[in-house]
């Protein structure tokens, strides 16, 4: 396991916003196929860390490697083409388009010849792939519904579906359970468990019933830094975790 290159490796990565160190000297390595959960109170820098890994913000300092290749300076679209897929805490969808069009764009973005003035044909393999993802996300009955008219839960399902559609090597989910009804949560857990083992998953999640069952390792962040990195069973009973998490969040 140690001989293989880590899927993603952060070396001394920092991101400042003025005086605020949102991410402060984070060194982190996630192995291929690993499920990593990132915990931490609000403002710990989890989402900023995601944005730095995906290229929305360049790190102020440090280096990011994806399967051994330096991606620190790459724009977001180049990282996506290499196989990094992500979701957002607040769904970022194409509200004026329908579900199938959203998924089609997600399938198509990482494929070559994405610049075409032609309409996709009915039996286009990418349209078929988009339909399959809709099936998997239980959105088949909403294919031609505009995103604006979806319920919150359906928007979250689509959000995850779009990240999966590009068939990424590294999937980064930012609070996928946020705003889901209790009834929808087991469905999300099932989906996360069904992800192929070849896929590397990094998950920000506050809901322990979803986060801990899927996690191989848990990283706890506070004030931009990594505080603890451990297995889920240890984290669950760690007094420091409870102090940081329960002490500040409640």
């Amino acid at each position: 396991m140690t001989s293989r290159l880590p899927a993603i490796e952060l070396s001394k990565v920092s991101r400042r916003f003025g005086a605020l160190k949102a991410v402060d000297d984070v060194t982190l390595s996630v192995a291929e196929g690993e499920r990593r959960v990132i915990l931490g109170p609000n403002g710990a820098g989890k989402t900023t860390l995601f944005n730095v890994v995906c290229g929305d913000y360049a790190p102020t300092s440090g280096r990011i490697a994806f399967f051994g290749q330096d991606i620190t300076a790459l724009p977001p679209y180049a990282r996506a083409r290499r196989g990094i897929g992500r979701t957002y805490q607040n769904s970022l969808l194409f509200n004026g388009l329908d579900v199938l069009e959203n998924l089609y764009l997600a399938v198509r973005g990482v494929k070559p010849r994405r610049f075409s003035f032609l309409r996709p044909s009915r039996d286009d393999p990418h349209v078929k792939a988009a339909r399959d993802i809709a099936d998997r996300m239980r959105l088949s009955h909403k294919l031609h519904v505009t995103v604006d008219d979806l319920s919150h839960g359906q928007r979250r399902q689509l959000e995850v579906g779009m990240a999966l559609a590009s068939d990424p090597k590294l999937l980064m989910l930012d609070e996928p359970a946020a705003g889901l009804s209790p009834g929808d949560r087991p469905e999300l857990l099932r989906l996360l468990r069904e992800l192929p083992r070849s896929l590397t998953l990094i998950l920000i999640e506050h809901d322990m019933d979803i986060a801990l069952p899927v996690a191989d390792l848990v990283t706890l962040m506070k004030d931009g830094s990594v505080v603890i990195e451990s297995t889920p069973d240890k984290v669950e009973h760690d007094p420091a975790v409870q102090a940081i998490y329960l002490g500040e969040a409640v």
Partner: protein
Amino acid sequence: MSTGNALRSSSALVTVSVLAVLVALPFVLTEFWTTNILVRAMVYGIVALSLTFLAYYGGLLSLAQMVVAGVAGYTIAVSVPGAIPENSLQIPYSLAIPLAVVLATVSGLLIGAIAVRTREIYLLMITLAIAVSFYFFVQANVEYLNGYEGIRNVLGPDIFGVPLRTPYVFYFVALATSFALYALVLYVSGSQFGLVLQGIRDNPRRLSALGYNVAHHRIAAFGVAGFIAGIGGVLITIYNIGISPGTVSTHSTISILIMSVIGGLGHPIGAFIGAVIFTIIDTFAADLYDRDRFNTLIGVVFLAIVVASPDGVTGLAKRAGDLLRGLRLIAPGAVAADPTLQANVPSKD
């Protein structure tokens, strides 16, 4: 989806009937109406269409579309035989027109490349700056563009031996071109490129995270709009029998914007609806109101439409359509035929 098909076939029916009416119109209307209202509305409407295309599908509001049209117009004006002052190029129309459209597309791409990092009000300011600079450039260039006077006597090609400017011929050429470009915009909106463009409008950040280069697609959108505006510019120049700085002035830039906004930026057809309304008001305002102040009337009508319906005439039509559909849902089929039943029968789900 049966409702989708029904909607599509009903909108196809509307398109065909409108087209049939437009084909019949010149045989019913006077030549004045055909040429001074409808043809004028169509040739300027094409430039408005390019603006609506950028605004609706790309979320990019550009004031430089008349510049692009001007590039095409000046290209044919300085190259075709017969134009006054005489040029040394003497290229036939069959080559000058494609050249004009290519140069317009290239200038569209250039404007896109300049403006690509700006958004909203800043995009508006940058494209306005380009428009104003272009106006002063053509006015100052006496050597090639004949400065303030511009270039006259651009008569247009012959179509099968008949001069293009023959009223009927010009009408049908303008109609066919407008319809073709309108259809092109509708087709492209559903294409791979069109979907990406709408994705950029809705959420550029997500689109980038999906693997698309947002800047390249934005620039390409300006290129497509440049192609459309270029064809409009060729027709405008032949319609006006020439081109002068006035064609690309701030006044005409704003006229194009007014057409698009009156018609509504929510659908490409709005450009032509807005162009017809604008042309009618622009033509008759001087008769209805003080000759020196007819612009006030245009302004008032513009304000009234924008206040009554911020998304223009097409927005108004869309809302009326939704209202009708809503009524039909409450009282479907046979019940609708008998108004006395309507109140008592519970609506079927």
